[in-house]
């Protein structure tokens, strides 16, 4: 099994790479468009994938990936299952602040609350942040892109402030499982 590792490649100058993983391919291309047009301080490469592991053929041409974003559509069970299986193909170094979950459709329907709870448990057990996003409006996508970019800036070491992804992840990681269990 080929694991995706964060430190096996040399980073490119002034460039950060973000990998968006979404099985249904609804949000990722819209989000990618916004991300590349939004950021103008440094170069952002966006890689789109449906699931992990990534195809071996692209291994050489693929740059170092600084942030992996799993997009979970709460209306679909399959989306969550695919993310769960994809998590096995990442090296544990990524969980030091280089993985985050983006959740959509959190306000729709009654099943979504259970799924949201399981996403949060999953995130908490992997020490990752969970971001809720609105994907039906342009504003929502802009907001999500801005938040992802600020995490990417940390994890790719682009931030002028002396802080690290590891330090940020201790602040942003999802730890809300205890209050969910009480409900």
């Amino acid at each position, binding site marked *: 099994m080929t694991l995706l590792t964060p430190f096996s490649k040399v980073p490119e100058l002034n460039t950060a790479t973000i990998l968006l993983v979404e099985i*249904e391919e609804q949000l990722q291309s819209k989000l990618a468009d916004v991300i*590349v047009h939004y950021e103008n301080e440094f*170069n952002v490469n966006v*890689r789109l*994938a449906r699931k992990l592991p990534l195809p071996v053929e692209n291994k050489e041409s693929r740059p170092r990936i600084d942030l992996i974003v799993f997009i979970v559509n709460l209306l679909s069970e399959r989306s969550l299952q695919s993310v769960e299986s994809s998590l096995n193909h990442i090296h544990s170094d990524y969980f030091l602040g280089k993985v985050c979950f983006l959740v959509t459709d959190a306000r729709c329907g009654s099943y979504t609350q259970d799924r949201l709870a399981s996403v949060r448990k999953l995130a908490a057990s992997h020490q990752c942040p969970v971001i809720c996003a609105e994907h039906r409006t342009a504003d929502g996508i802009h907001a999500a892109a801005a938040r992802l970019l600020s995490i990417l800036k940390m994890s790719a070491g682009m931030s002028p402030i002396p802080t690290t992804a590891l330090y940020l992840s201790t602040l942003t990681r999802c730890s809300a499982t205890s209050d969910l269990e009480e409900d």
Partner: protein
Amino acid sequence: MDEQTIFVLRRIFKKIPSRNIEDLLKNWNCLTADQLRALDYTRPKWTLVENIISFCEERRLNMKHITNLEMINRIENPDNDTWHSCQLVEPQDDALFVELTQFKEQLKAYLEGVIRHISIKIKKHEDEALWIRIAWGDNFSKPNHLKPTYVVHHLHTSYVFICNLMAKHKILLYQALVVSTKHGSIKDAHLSNRSLTAMRTLLLRHYQQVFPNNHSMILDEGNTYASHPCIEKEHAPHEERRDQLASEAFGDSPTPKLETAVYRLETRYRGNGKTTLSDKEELFRGVVKFSSTSLLHSLRHCVASGMVEGPVTPLLSAITQKGRNYFVITDKGPGVSS
């Protein structure tokens, strides 16, 4: 005009929405220009219909004109009833040389020879389709114009589309079609749908088909829309492959608007022996029905978007490949349905 003609006329107008009446009357061309002008289409439908009936009486129209009106309406709105398709097989050597007049004469002669009271009307539509309206009677009663059978056939093709056919008339009509088109026999094509247009495009292969081809992959690469140079798709080749598979199985969009597909299961459960189902001797029977406003489009989307993994199962691709939407699945895979 006698009582029955007026009754039939009323029944015809009952099924037509008010907004279509004006155009229909113009196409019918049986009322004078003055009469058409005198009709007020903003009035409630029943007063409008009463006016039309009184005009028809003035013009002394008979049942022939009325059936003509009904045919015009059916040809304009072919997607309002359930149609079944049949396939003519075993063509004779001269089947390709059947002419329109010859076909008409033979069909009429055969049916009139078998049933004394029958009304047959054949009309050729602009798109080369023959529309045949048959009102059945028997030796003692007059043709029933309230429930006519409609048959649509394109000469020199092997498919016939039939709507509203009663079981007792089936054998007569089938025989008449076989004789007049010079074929050996006719069989059910197992395709039925509300939209005649979709059935015709599917069976006569008038939709955009994609054939398995190694070169099409290269062509597709040129067509991919230009995205930002910083965005790269990891699964891009897979995506193209999926799209190709979907197009091969269900055609390029827009696909024919098929509404249902029915699979009748007569299979045995083959598990790994842990359940009691596999012990039973008798067959497992069930019906699986897929329905959608545009079934082929939905299936195509499922494959193209990657919701369904792997190659398309022959059970689904058979809908377009064999042009049918009713299957019986026996124990040895898809079999011939009864």
